[in-house]
């Protein structure tokens, strides 16, 4: 049985549209305009125990909403989810003792106290046996290299050190499922790398199930074999990282190295010219055109070397996000936002 089972999960919520100007604001007291945001639209997902899955998607795609649903912070509009057999939004203590949510932009440690005090609090809240607490605390702070900082007030730690402490706090109770929302946001390259290393080691070692959202493709490439792309509240892709290119990239990058003395002109007839730096040139060529284009190039010019590559993953994904977003803005596409006009503002309050 999958440790996370999601069926038809949907979350709509209504956002009050604050009008501009004083008069409009006054009118807004009586006539309120709401826009219904369909943050998550019918997601199906199965995650097996021990998987490390990345959620990718543009801002506002529904990644964080999905994590909030799975951690029980919000109720769905419809659909079902089970994590370790529990319905998250019932918030059983037994469930809450077995998972953790870490949000890169929120902190839960006590600001003015050393991290160890927050950890002791977690020990109590999660009823961690003293022996286990000591072992986990030692192991985690050792792996993350923050052991010497345990007794320093959290406010004096750097952002990276603080994030490591947050991770330690979240893992003290040995959760079986971990949700990570942008854990490396705003961190420098070294700290990012450290956290990646740590997550990989910890996940391989403990076989816990992790769902991660991140904007850093490096996090994803380093950690997750399985990638789920969410855009406009729906799953657009679920598979391996490499598979994304096969599925979504319509182009290849062709790099040509011309022979000495070859005059290179009118390259644009073969594809989009990315770069010309005699005697080298890079072209973007539609995938199905590659064999024909190469044949004509080789027939036209004296070429010393040819390389045909996939475009960088980041580019493919950026393109995919862009395409999904521009679909959304097209007037004829199925609307994600539905306007609701209400007369009685008072009644809307419950």
């Amino acid at each position, binding site marked *: 049985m999958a440790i996370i089972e999601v069926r038809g999960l949907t979350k709509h*919520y*209504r*956002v009050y549209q604050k009008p501009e100007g004083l008069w409009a604001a006054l009118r807004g007291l009586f006539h309120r305009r709401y826009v219904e945001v369909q943050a998550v639209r019918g997601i199906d997902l199965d995650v097996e125990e021990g998987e490390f899955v990345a959620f990718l998607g543009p801002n506002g795609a529904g990644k964080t909403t999905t994590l*909030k649903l799975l*951690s*029980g*912070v*919000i*109720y769905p509009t419809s659909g079902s989810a089970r994590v370790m057999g529990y319905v998250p*939004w019932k*918030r059983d*203590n037994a469930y*809450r*003792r077995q998972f*953790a*949510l870490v949000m890169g932009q*929120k902190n*839960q440690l*006590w600001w*003015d*106290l050393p991290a160890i*005090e*927050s950890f*002791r*609090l977690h*020990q*109590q*809240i*999660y*009823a961690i046996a003293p022996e286990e607490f000591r072992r986990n605390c030692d192991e985690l702070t050792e792996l993350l290299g923050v052991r010497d900082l345990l007794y320093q*007030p959290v406010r004096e730690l750097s952002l990276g050190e603080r994030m490591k402490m947050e991770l330690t706090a979240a893992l003290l109770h040995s959760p079986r499922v971990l949700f990570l929302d942008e854990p490396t946001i705003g961190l420098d390259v070294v700290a990012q790398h450290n956290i990646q290393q740590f997550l990989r080691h910890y996940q391989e070692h403990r076989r816990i199930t992790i769902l991660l959202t991140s904007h850093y493709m490096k996090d994803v490439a380093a950690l997750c074999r399985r990638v789920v792309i969410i855009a406009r509240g729906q799953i657009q892709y679920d598979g391996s990282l490499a598979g994304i290119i096969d599925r979504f990239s319509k182009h290849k990058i062709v790099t040509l190295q011309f022979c000495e003395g070859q005059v290179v002109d009118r390259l644009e007839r073969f594809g989009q010219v990315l770069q010309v730096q005699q005697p080298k040139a890079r072209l973007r060529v539609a995938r199905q055109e590659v064999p024909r284009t190469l044949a004509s190039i080789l027939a036209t010019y004296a070429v010393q070397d040819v390389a045909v590559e996939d475009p960088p993953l980041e580019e493919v994904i950026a393109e995919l996000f862009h395409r999904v977003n521009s679909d959304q803005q097209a007037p004829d596409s199925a609307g994600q936002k539905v306007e609701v006009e209400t007369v009685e503002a008072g009644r809307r*309050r*419950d």
Partner: protein
Amino acid sequence: MESAISACHRSSSFRQRLATWWVILRVALEERLVYRGDFALGTLMRFLPIITQIFLWRAVFDAVQTSGRADVAGYRFEDVVAYYLLTMVARAFSSMPGLASGIAASIRNGEVKKFIIQPVDMLGFLLLSRIAHKLAYYSVAVGPFALVFFLCRGFFLDGWPSWPVLAVFCASLVLGFFLGYFIEACIGLIGFWFLEVSSLLFVYMLLNFFLSGHMFPLDMLPGAARQWVDWLPFKYLAYFPAAVFLNKLAFPQMLRGLAIEVAWLVAFVLLSRLAWNRGLRRYSAFGG
């Protein structure tokens, strides 16, 4: 056998709970002590208004005495100053600086999620933090308080009250703390419905200032108003403990007062629970 096991289990889970409370209390206490220098000074500053109060009431009583009376609603000049000092003690228990606005802010900025995700109850957690906050405060404030009361000992014309009265006084202080906590918690939880509670809080502070007896002894209110105010919860936040200490109430009246206070406390505990449950449901439905 089975019941023995379950009793044993219950007691161990109770012990576990006690341990949790103790750690929350200790950690919160440590956190507050980080700022001890700040509130040592703050406490002394809080007594400054007493000087203006003394001058103000001196002038009032001078005017009253020219008309041939020695007291106002049973209060001599010294009693009023003693009353004022005692309300400061009462308010050191019942006032909850930053509680309601803090709860509302945590709802607004999403920190409240922490209490949804972790197996810990927010109202209980904040109550323990607040107890720690108060303990830390008293440990420092006891000095300035003792000093001011010593300097002002001349205003306490009747000296110390009897032991039973003192006991009721202490009980009213402790109950005042809990009542103050749950009233403000309820106001803070309104943040689930209205993101900003500061104007509501302002109205509450204003009502509190007049109706708790913080501004003048409630005995000075005209008859009809007095009767209304007697049934409201506000007077327990300042007037009641001071009136008890000054022997303004007969023993049955004191006990009746305590009973009404307990009833209000129970009402606000239930109301805060209800507001938390309802608010959470709303929060969960509307985004979070």
